[in-house]
């Protein structure tokens, strides 16, 4: 790459970060939380963008940033108060400057109309013409300052200190709980120092092996809330005495921090004494007194760093290579474990123990490696405030966006592909979900509508929720519309939930007039498809008059898949667990022939098509007899509900997804492959593809799910 080009790329990457910082600051100013530090941060961001832009000759960008910066400078120096109308203008200016950066990046610098905002900014700045902005274009001198501010900012953010006393009863051990695991969990929450209280421990001769003698005093430092701590003891709470207390923050101790780590409280240690004494002394005599001092130092140090985490930019390919290698290791370990087991070594042998330890380490390694690929959802969420502002302006509704859990981390691929669907859903929430201001007031709701966007980790998946406090889904209208479009039959009786789900049908749109915000009828079905492509699901919970909630659950990573391992003949296949609803052993009477090609399975009086994988894929040795094998009920976004007939279910496990399309080609009905513990390749089935294959084979449409009581 041309060296200039690569410097430019770095500049744009920095711009992205600076724009985020700016946006955050501006939003804080909007909500009236602006202190000097925040205003300074915004100013620095704009200034740095301007400085770099000047170096590359982006004139429009620099001209706009200059006037923006001037106004910020006035606010910073207290000459201009950040009144709501000023902040509003600043927010628009923030949007424009990000447009300018985007334009400079694409090379198309025409077509940004910043005249109005520029005029308005000039009005605030009290200047009319353009002022020379060349005086401090070597803007990089601000970098060291940024660091200095970071430290100051971090100081009041001192983590809380918790004192926990944990006295397990014998029953805790009887229930196979392990204090070590609990302590390890606590260690994940922050810095801990643990002290075992051995005072109740009797002499060995009078020790009862089944009794619990040891208690622990734990000091935990970190930005931790009580529920998080209680959660760590969730399974043990009944079988122990537990006290959790928040300690007083002793800030006065902090000034000692800048001292070199010379342990000022232990002057005697500095004396040239023999080494054994040095080690023994703090442990024996003064450990309880000194430990807090030491941990405080440790705890405070990361807090300072937190303000400016050190990062490196790494080529994504390198990370992916690492992810792959970690995946290989996991497979190799599984193979090794199997061989060891086959060779007759038990889990308690030294070899078995070593392998177990190895497995734990590997899992940790894999998780850490996966974590490299993850990013906070913030990078997606931060685009939403602007969207909400623009939509609010277009629809004339008053909207407040609440964002929660933006530090939740997800795989980069998910981040890259979740933006569009989220944008769409927020549009829908504001355009369709929220009522007009008049209606809201008439219904006794606050004039300002609320849209809440949140993300959290739950059970190994990420859950993203978009909730509005609008009118909820108008089911009568949805039904009417679906009838009009011929999506449902007039006689169909649908539960509320089913009506809600109609909005995901292709070609469905309830907006009576097509607005340019949403309502082209390509909305929710596209959203659903993109979520499904990511291996996720989407659920609506709507309460008339109270609002709607869209809940997305997505896998944390796309490199591994939670699968159900099934046997068909002499082959092993993997079904994505996200498609599996339930499994059953059907008797012959529950299977009915339907036409020449199809069989239907009676699932609690609903008939669903039953597809034999063995027959469809031509697997040797698969069960053929009616009433043999296991039926796995599948729900897929594309095909609906149907059942797959397999010989047996072997288990459930995480598998590493391996594509072979590069070496071969796409096979209908097969999503990818994976490698099992015995080293053999197993194919991962694509349930929609299987249904399609079956349809093609029979040359006709697949029978839809039928109600036994209906037609």
């Amino acid at each position, binding site marked *: 790459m041309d060296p200039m080009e690569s410097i430019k790329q770095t500049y744009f990457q920095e711009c992205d970060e600076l724009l985020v910082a700016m946006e955050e600051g501006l939003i804080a100013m909007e909500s009236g939380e602006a202190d000097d530090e925040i205003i300074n941060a915004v100013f620095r961001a704009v200034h740095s963008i301007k400085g770099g832009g000047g170096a590359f000759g982006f004139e429009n960008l620099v001209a706009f940033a200059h006037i923006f910066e001037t106004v910020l400078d006035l606010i910073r120096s207290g000459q201009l108060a950040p009144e709501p109308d000023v902040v509003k203008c600043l927010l628009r200016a923030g949007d424009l400057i990000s447009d300018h950066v985007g334009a400079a990046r694409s090379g198309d610098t025409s077509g940004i109309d910043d005249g109005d905002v520029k005029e308005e900014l000039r009005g605030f700045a009290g200047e009319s013409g353009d002022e020379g902005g060349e005086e401090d274009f070597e803007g990089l001198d601000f970098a060291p300052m940024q660091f200095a501010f970071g430290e100051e900012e971090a100081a009041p953010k001192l983590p809380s200190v918790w004192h926990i006393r944990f006295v397990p009863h014998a029953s805790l051990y009887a229930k196979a709980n392990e204090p070590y695991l609990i302590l390890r969990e606590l260690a994940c929450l922050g810095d801990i120092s643990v002290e075992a209280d051995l005072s109740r421990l009797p002499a060995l001769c009078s020790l009862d092996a089944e009794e619990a003698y040891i208690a622990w005093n734990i000091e935990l430092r970190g930005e931790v809330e009580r529920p998080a701590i209680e959660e760590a003891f969730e399974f043990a709470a009944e079988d122990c005495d537990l006290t959790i207390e928040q300690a007083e923050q002793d800030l006065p101790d902090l000034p000692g921090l800048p001292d070199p780590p010379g342990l000022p409280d232990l002057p005697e240690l500095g004396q040239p004494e023999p080494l054994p004494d040095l080690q023994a002394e703090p442990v024996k005599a003064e450990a309880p007194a000194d430990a807090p001092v030491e941990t405080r130092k440790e705890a405070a140090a990361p807090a300072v760093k937190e303000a400016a985490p050190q990062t490196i930019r790494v080529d994504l390919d390198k990370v992916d290579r690492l992810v*792959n290698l970690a*995946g*290989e290791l996991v*497979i190799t370990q599984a193979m090794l474990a199997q061989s060891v087991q086959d060779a007759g070594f038990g889990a308690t042998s030294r070899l078995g123990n070593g392998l177990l330890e190895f497995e734990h380490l590997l899992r940790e390694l894999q998780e850490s490696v996966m974590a490299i690929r993850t990013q906070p959802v913030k990078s997606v969420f931060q685009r939403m405030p602007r969207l909400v502002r623009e939509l609010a302006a277009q629809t004339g509704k008053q909207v407040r966006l609440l964002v929660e859990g933006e530090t939740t981390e997800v795989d980069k691929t998910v981040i890259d592909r979740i933006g569009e669907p989220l944008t769409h859903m927020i549009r829908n929430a504001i355009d369709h979900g929220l009522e007009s201001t008049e209606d809201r007031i008439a219904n006794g709701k606050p004039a300002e509508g609320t849209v809440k966007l949140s993300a959290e980790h739950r059970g190994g998946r990420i859950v993203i929720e978009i909730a509005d406090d609008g009118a909820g889904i108008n089911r009568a209208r949805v039904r009417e519309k679906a009838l009009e479009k011929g999506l449902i039959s007039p006689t169909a009786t649908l539960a509320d939930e089913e009506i809600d789900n109609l909005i995901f049908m292709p070609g469905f749109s309830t907006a009576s007039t097509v607005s340019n915000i949403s309502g082209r009828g390509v909305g929710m079905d596209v959203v659903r498809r993109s979520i499904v492509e990511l291996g996720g699901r989407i659920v609506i919970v709507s309460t008339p008059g109270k609002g709607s909630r869209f809940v997305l659950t997505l896998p944390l990573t796309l490199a591994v898949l939670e699968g159900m391992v099934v046997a068909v003949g002499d*082959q092993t296949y993997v079904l994505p667990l996200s498609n599996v609803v339930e499994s059953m052993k059907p008797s012959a009477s529950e299977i009915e022939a339907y036409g020449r090609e199809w069989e239907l399975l009676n699932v609690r009086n609903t008939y669903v098509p039953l597809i034999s994988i063995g027959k*469809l*894929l*031509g*697997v040797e040795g698969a069960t053929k007899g009616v009433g043999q094998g296991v039926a796995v009920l599948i729900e897929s976004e594309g095909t609906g509900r149907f059942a797959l007939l397999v010989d047996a279910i072997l288990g459930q496990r995480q598998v590493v997804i*391996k*594509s*072979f399309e*590069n*070496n*071969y*080609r796409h*096979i*209908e*009905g*097969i999503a990818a*492959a994976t*490698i099992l513990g015995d*080293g*053999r*390749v*197993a*194919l991962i089935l694509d349930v929609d593809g299987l249904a399609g*294959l079956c349809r093609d084979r029979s040359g006709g449409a697949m029978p839809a799910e039928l109600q036994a009581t209906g037609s």
Partner: protein
Amino acid sequence: MDHLDPNVAESRRQFITFCTNGQEFAADIMTIREIRGWTPTTPLPNAPGYVRGVINLRGVVLPVIDLRARLGHGMTETNAKHVIVVVRVVDSVIGLLVDAVSDIITPEASDIQPTPDLARDADSIFVEGIAVVDEKMVTILSMRHLVDSLREHTTVEAAVA
């Protein structure tokens, strides 16, 4: 020795020869990644008969082609002595099931003849030429054509078969 003169070494290609169904074949040594023993494959559904399935090659899912079947002489009855020649062309890696690997040959360019017109048929598109080595005929296969045919025609042929 040839390698003392770089010009000569460059102009002469090296081939690995292997036999299947009693015939000798050769492939450019630059396309061969490794040679390994036969391991049972996982069959691929709806694939042509000569695609024996896939195996795990250190984490890579490798499709294995039965060369004998590919050339229309029926399936190889496999045993532990059979070998899989791992071939890489551009980004694709495949395995070629053959009876045995024989030799490395370095024929003179003049010893390589184009495929005789009479012998042309649909399946010989991946025959690059014929070399005479020690008065024996060796068919040189184009690995590129073999890999491309696998990636492009498999479903069509599967539908016919």
